[in-house]
């Protein structure tokens, strides 16, 4: 500031060429950088979204072609017809997310703080499942949980299946085609999406903060409660979102590991689109699902108070 102030004021000469052309071009740079992303989003997100929105208010059939008639009634109809699947989807997704957190947090903690030189190997192992297709992996679980298989056998011997049967999570001697199987599949499939953000936020915590907490009379457990866990909250929030959002719309697990009684909303949408060919109903269901997930997520983020965190 002083430097510019000290400079003698430039004479407002008439002969001055192009008055400062650089700043204008500079101001446009961010927009040019945004352009590819924005174009991509418009073509592959906004356009399909608008198309689906229009589909959801159409009536007709595949033979007589669909026409936009602003038939909003569809929304109410599908909601009434399929609300159990909606609720089930949210419940399964929530349980799977919670299980992912319970299983994933200790693992991420171990990798971040205790793994030493094995850290990279463990991280590769976490993402190793991605080298196989989602479908193949879920099919493999079908074999693992198959009737009379070793898992069912072992759980039976331990009388675990009796307990879960009473709770309504399994039925009789079966594991496959039960809610437990679907939730297990969801948990397995989305676990890496929980571990990776948790690991990232834990790994950033300075080890000296643990020492400082210990030095200030915190037991290891208190150090975890008052320092480690609060500081890992951004990872917890992004991990739970990355797990909850895709699992609430998932249909592969429900389809392959579940039964008609464990149908999730994803399976309903899929069959409406591809089997029943009722496009308006399928589109309306998709929009309702989107709205519900958006609502749940924004409520959750507000409650978690992530804006308070760092």
């Amino acid at each position: 500031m002083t430097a510019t102030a000290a400079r003698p004021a430039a004479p407002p000469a008439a002969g001055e060429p192009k008055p400062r052309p650089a700043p204008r071009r500079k101001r446009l740079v961010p927009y040019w950088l945004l352009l590819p992303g924005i174009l991509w989003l418009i073509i592959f997100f906004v356009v399909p979204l608008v198309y689906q929105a229009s589909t959801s208010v159409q009536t007709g059939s595949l033979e007589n072609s669909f026409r936009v008639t602003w038939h909003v009634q569809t929304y109410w109809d599908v909601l009434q017809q399929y609300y159990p699947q909606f609720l089930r989807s949210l419940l399964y997704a929530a349980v799977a997310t919670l299980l992912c957190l319970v299983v994933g947090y200790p693992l991420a903690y171990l990798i971040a703080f205790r793994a030493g030189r094995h850290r990279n190997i463990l991280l590769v192992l976490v993402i190793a499942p991605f080298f196989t297709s989602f479908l193949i992996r879920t099919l493999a679980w079908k074999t693992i949980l198959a009737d009379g298989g070793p898992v069912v056998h072992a759980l039976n011997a331990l009388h675990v299946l009796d307990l879960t049967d009473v709770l309504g999570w399994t039925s009789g001697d079966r594991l496959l085609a039960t809610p437990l199987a679907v939730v297990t599949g969801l948990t397995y499939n989305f676990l890496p999406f929980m571990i990776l953000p948790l690991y990232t936020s834990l790994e950033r915590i300075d080890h000296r903060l643990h020492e400082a907490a210990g030095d200030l009379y915190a037991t290891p457990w208190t150090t975890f409660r008052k320092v480690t866990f609060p500081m890992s909250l951004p990872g917890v929030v992004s991990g739970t979102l990355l797990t909850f959002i895709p699992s609430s719309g998932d249909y592969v697990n429900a389809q392959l590991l579940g039964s008609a009684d464990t149908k999730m909303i994803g399976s309903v949408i899929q069959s409406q689109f591809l089997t029943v060919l009722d496009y308006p109903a399928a589109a309306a269901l998709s929009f309702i699902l989107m709205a519900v997930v958006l609502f749940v997520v924004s409520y959750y983020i507000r409650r978690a108070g992530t804006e308070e965190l760092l």
Partner: protein
Amino acid sequence: MTETASTGPAGGDVRLAGISKKYGSFRAVEPLDLTVPQGTFFALLGASGCGKTTTLRMIAGLEDPTTGTVFLGDRDVTDLPPHKRPVNTVFQSYALFPHLDIFENVAFGLRRRGIKSVKKQVGEMLDLVQLGDHARRKPQQLSGGQQQRVAVARALINRPQVLLLDEPLGALDLKLRRQMQLELKRIQTEVGVTFIHVTHDQEEAMTMADTIAVMNAGRVEQLGSPGELYENPRTTFVANFLGTSNLIETEILGTDGAGLTVSGGGGCKLMLPRDRCSTGTAAGGKVLVGIRPEKITLTHADDAGAIPEGRNRVPGRIADTSFIGVSTQYVVHSPVCPDLAVYAQNIERDARLVPGADVVLHWNPEHTFGLGADQDRSAGEGEAA
């Protein structure tokens, strides 16, 4: 937990008995005996890697000693985890909790000990470090010096028996560092807690500490008050690490009561007090004679006659001078030592004292000290910050 961490009137000295630390085959700290009297400001001084931080961490409980015992007062705390020791640490990087505000950072230790009403204490402590207005800020909103004061407040509020400071001023710029040195000294005098301060900055140690332990390669080279260490170093490492010393290789000619006469290169005879010689004084033995640069007076060779009797005299020729404001530093070639350093206050400057001028260096023999000649003459040189 509340009991073990209880404060009460600070109880006793810190005593390290035969404490050592090995990492694999590397000996970070050699078996060490050290007593820090209660209420003193004690500095562990040394270059990086000398084992001073490891020693501090063993007192804090953050490092398990390989051998030896740590006593706080009469209590053996060697096997106590950090959260059960009545000591607190100010970490080098401060290690403030980024998710808590300043108030909660300072209150952390009190809350862990189950103290409910912390408001008054925290307020007083923040006032002591002059941060009362910043209670609700987050650490990253403060400057380095303010963060440093929060770290001190967070540790001191627990009224520990001992406060450990691990290079707490290392991250600050020079001016702020000077200011914080005085601040820390003021706080220590005010609260009367034992401070153990780890630093590689000899000026910092001398400014603040009552007692300094100079460490080198896992050992304590010498222990004493700043004045004692400076005036009477017992090893070449201490002589060079604390300030600058001219070390002259000499041979002992003989003793005369309390005095010792030695001869340096070129047949130059020097005298020194016998009790300031930390090595054998038998005639014919070798001894390194040391003299601090500011104790030497520089006189032009033409005026050599005016030099009083009884002073150590060395002839030489000025090789280099550098003017640094309050003083001028000379490098003088002489038969006893090729590069004697001399610092002269700029009171009356003799215009003849320019490079190439023949001079006589002279000083009071009382200021001379003697060191064992079996040591590396340049040990510790250039290691001080």
